[in-house]
Each structure stands twice: as structure tokens, then as C-alpha cells.
């Protein structure tokens, strides 16, 4: 992680502020910054999304390909995550500097999506043993201003929600060889169960959501959890070296669950609203 150093005065100021439920930007502990999202902004991809939250800027592109299923999982398709920390975000990401963080984020994503309740890989199967869809999710971190995990989680869900997979009209086995016909129509993925990621950062004796870069420096440990739309938690990862007491941990999980449900509902409403603009919607992209 790009290391920002703070002086002890600044740290104390942040710490006492969080203690008083009043953060440096006037937010409460459980308050999210407002975010901005745009989907389907890259015509070259099957689905894409860009998310701003504070200074954090995430771009997600999704590509779909025909592939052969794994031999041990013949009925399942494939879903792969790849995270790239761009050196434009911070000079610390230059060369191999961002690799650790990138692996960490993709591992969290894999853990969040691996359960069948969240993402059923069987829906990606076309012909068992022969053909399946493989979805590549490419995450590009353009700027980091704190709370990367949540931002990536939201952006990935939005991108998957906008993904359009070509419809298959006929899939037959022709003398052992698969024969597949695609139509021009597209189908959308069923995103109703996809998780989002919520990070709770423990600072002092309290925990906060959506930390800024400065607040992340003050935190000793944080929990990254993925919450499904039905309120179930599909994965929990603890980051940082600090310890968390069991009581606090359960309270954090509860808070994360409620906020996750809320965030998920808001996100889906907004994406539905964007969908209603249809294909004539103006794309902002990067030129503004």
C-alpha cells in the first residue's frame, strides 16, 4: 500500500475525532462518502464500469470468451479476476510495487464470489466437458484515495451487472466436436445474488467505514467482508497486524451486514436508473 506518513499530531487529531464520532471531513463513523458511477463506458468490452469515491478512481472491464471447462469441474464455467495497480495512482505502484496489493484485492474478490450462493458458475456452462464461458474481470486502479476494497467491489458488481453475453442459439455435439452458434442478441448475467465488499477499519477502540487514506494510516487492523444481497456474509478477511476482540468482531460484522445491505440496495437502484436511459445515453468516460 502506498505509505503516507502522518505526524503524531495529525494522528492524534484523527484518533480523537473518531472517538467523538466526528471525522476530519465532518462525517460520522458509519457514513459513506457519496460516490459516482458510470457503466458501459467502454464499447470494446462486454461490460465495464468506472467508480469514483473521494479520490479513489476504479475502472473495471469485463471480457467474455469461449473456453473448455476444467476436467474436475465439467459443469462449470470460469470466472477470473485480475487487478492492476497503475503507477499513475501513486509512484509506489511502479514496477512490481503494486503487485502485493493487487494479489490481495483479487484474492478478496475470489473469496467473495466463490460461493455458489453468490455466483453460480454452472450458468456459464454451455456443453459439459466441452464448452463454457470464461469471464475475465480486469480491475484497473487509477487513483487511490482510501477504501480500495469497497470501491473495487462496487465497481466489479456494477460492471458484471452491465455485462452482456452473446446468446447461444444452438449447441450440439457434432461427432465429438462441439458446434456452437451465437446470435446477435445478448443476455445479461443474473446479478441478483452478487456480493459487495465492505471494509470496517478499526481505529482506536472504534471502527469506521469508508476510510480516507489518512484514516487508513491510523488503523491497526481492518475487516474486509463480502455481503450478499440477502444479508449473508460470504467471506471475511482480516488485514493488518492489530488484534480484534471477539465482542468487537461480532459487532463489526453486524454493522458491516447492515451497511452492506443498504449499499447494495442503493447501488442496484441507481444501476436500474442508469439502464433506463437506454443506449442513447451520453458517455462521459475520461473526457471531462
Amino acid at each position, binding site marked *: 500500500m502506498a505509505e503516507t*506518513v*502522518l*505526524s*503524531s*499530531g*495529525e494522528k*492524534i*487529531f484523527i484518533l*480523537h*475525532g473518531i472517538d*467523538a464520532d*466526528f*471525522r*476530519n*471531513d*465532518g*462525517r*460520522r463513523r*458509519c*457514513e*459513506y*462518502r*457519496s*460516490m*459516482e*458511477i*458510470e457503466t458501459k*463506458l467502454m464499447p470494446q468490452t462486454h461490460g465495464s464500469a*468506472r467508480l469514483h469515491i473521494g479520490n479513489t478512481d476504479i475502472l473495471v472491464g469485463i471480457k467474455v470468451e469461449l473456453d473448455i471447462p476444467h476436467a474436475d469441474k465439467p459443469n462449470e464455467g470460469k470466472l477470473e479476476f485480475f487487478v492492476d495497480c497503475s503507477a499513475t495512482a501513486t509512484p509506489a505502484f511502479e514496477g512490481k510495487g503494486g503487485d502485493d496489493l493487487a494479489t490481495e484485492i483479487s484474492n478478496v474478490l475470489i473469496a467473495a464470489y466463490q460461493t455458489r450462493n453468490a455466483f453460480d458458475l454452472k450458468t456459464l456452462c454451455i456443453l459439459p466437458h466441452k464448452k463454457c464461458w470464461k469471464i475475465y474481470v480486469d480491475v484497473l486502479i487509477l487513483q487511490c484515495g482510501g477504501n480500495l476494497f469497497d470501491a473495487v467491489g462496487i465497481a466489479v458488481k456494477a460492471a458484471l451487472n452491465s455485462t452482456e453475453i452473446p446468446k447461444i442459439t444452438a449447441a450440439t455435439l457434432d461427432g465429438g466436436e462441439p458446434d456452437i452458434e451465437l446470435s446477435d442478441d445478448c443476455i445479461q448475467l443474473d446479478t441478483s445474488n452478487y456480493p459487495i465488499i465492505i471494509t470496517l477499519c478499526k481505529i482506536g477502540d472504534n471502527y469506521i467505514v469508508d476510510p480516507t487514506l489518512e484514516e487508513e494510516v491510523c488503523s491497526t487492523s481492518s475487516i474486509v467482508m463480502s455481503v450478499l444481497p440477502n444479508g449473508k456474509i460470504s467471506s471475511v478477511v482480516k488485514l493488518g497486524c492489530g488484534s480484534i476482540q471477539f465482542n468487537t468482531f461480532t459487532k463489526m460484522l453486524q*454493522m458491516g451486514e*447492515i*451497511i452492506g445491505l*443498504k*449499499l447494495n440496495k*442503493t*447501488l442496484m*437502484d*441507481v444501476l436500474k*436508473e*442508469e439502464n433506463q*436511459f437506454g443506449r442513447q*445515453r*451520453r458517455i*462521459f468516460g475520461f473526457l*471531462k
Partner: protein
Amino acid sequence: MEEYPPIIVRLAINRIDLNLIKNENVQPRIYTPGEEISSQPDFLRGHGTYVDDENTLRASVAGVLEKVNKLISIRPLKARYQGEIGDVIVGRITEVQQKRWKVDTNSKLDSVLLLSSVNLPGGELRRRSAEDEQTMRRYLQEGDLICAEVQSTFVDGSLSLHTRVLKYGKLSQGIMLKVSPALIKRKKTHFHNLESGASLILGNNGYIWIGANKQDSDRSEGGFTQDLSRIPQINREVCARLRNCILILAQCNIQLTDTSVTYAYEESMKYKINELLEPEIMIDVSLLTHQRLIQQ
């Protein structure tokens, strides 16, 4: 059960343009690095340009053209801080070295603060011993924020700082903000004690310090002591409001002075502090501030 505030997700299509002052008709011509400016020989080469082998003048930075008679220069859109002697700056210690500290001041190279150009505890005329050299980290360590003045500039453009006046020195509790250095004009004073009770340092280098308490004036120990006691909630709210106001002004490209900051602070009073992060409110506050600045 605790009540959680709503989460706001916006769409890019509803984005609000925060750029207030714009000429609708005039599109500025932006040069990119390496782009040809002129191939005529009758020019004087200014900042941000270079002449290649074929005697054509090319831009070396991305920016807009500025022409004074024959002198052609390119003013960059976004630049690091170019120091000048006498500037007040806010900086962060990045390294402790032999007899000097390295300071991040938003310029191209790290600036230096020599051990001989700080006031050590024990008065002006104190000799610096070898022991002082060994305990430098006790005075200032990595990550500490200081306020200093530019003493001289080196040939390569890096700066030498000093804190030999009692108003300079280590900063304790508060918030540091980074804005573009172009937003801060050189003024008679960069230290402001605002009526609201906070102290404000507008560093020429684009780093801004919002100090939580005024009682920072005790500099008898060379200003290296830090007050780490709990700040009252009222002061904290003032600091947070100031922070959000300054960021609003910076996003809308309004010059930062004590007047503009005070105006923005006063105009923002009708909103809650956390509402100041929302674009609609940002535009309202900046418009009101802009109007008051024009009326002046």
C-alpha cells in the same frame, strides 16, 4: 438499534460541472509536450519550450501558449511548486540525514532544512554540538509537519529552508491539505488566526495547514513540543468546516486567501459540515463566495 445514514450513489450522467468561471466560446489551445509551436527563427525561447535539431520551437510541458513580443513560453496546466526566497511553506519531513532534514515541499526535488537553520531549545546563540547531531530525530522525525521559510535556492532548483523565526517550526494538531500551488498568491502574511478560533497557514507551495488551537505561540523551547491533549468538539467542527470549505474553493479554482476562506466559511454555515462534500452544495457555496469576492 443505531440509525445509519443513507449512502449516496450518483450517476456520471448527472454530474455537476464545478468549473464556474469559463468562457463558453473560447476554447484554449493546449500544447502537448513535443508539439511544434513555431518553425520561424524569430522567437525568444521562454519557459516550457525547447529548440530541436531542425530549429523548430517545441513545447516541453503540457499547457497554454503565452506570448510577450517575441518571447514564447508555455504555461503548464499543472505544475509543481517553484520556490522563491522568502516564501512561507508547509512541508513534511521525509528523511533525517547528517546535519540536515529532507523536507517534502511539493517541489520537483526535496528541500533541505539544515540543523544550523533551526532554533534549538536553549536560545538563539546556542552552539550546535555533536550531540545535537545525534539527537536530531528528537526534534523532528519522519512524517512531522513543519512550517518554514525559503532561505535560498540551489542551482538545481531545490530549496534550503529555515525556521529561525519563532512563528515557524513544528506543527502539532490539525489537518493538512494539498491544493495546487497556483491557487495561493504571495501575500504579506500567510499566517491567519481566524475569528472562528482556528489558525490557518496558507503555504506558498500549495500545502495548507489548519491548526486546531491558537495557543501555539509558546515557542520558547524552539517549538518542538507538541500539544497532544484532546481538542474540544467546537474547535474540531471549525477545523472540519474549514477543511471542506478550502477543498470546495480549490475544486472550483478560486484563489485561496484569508478573505475567500472566511467568506466560504460564512456562506457554508447554513449547511451541515458533512453536507459540504456533496456537489450541489459545493457549487452553491462557491457561487456565493465568488459573488462576494466580486462585490468587494
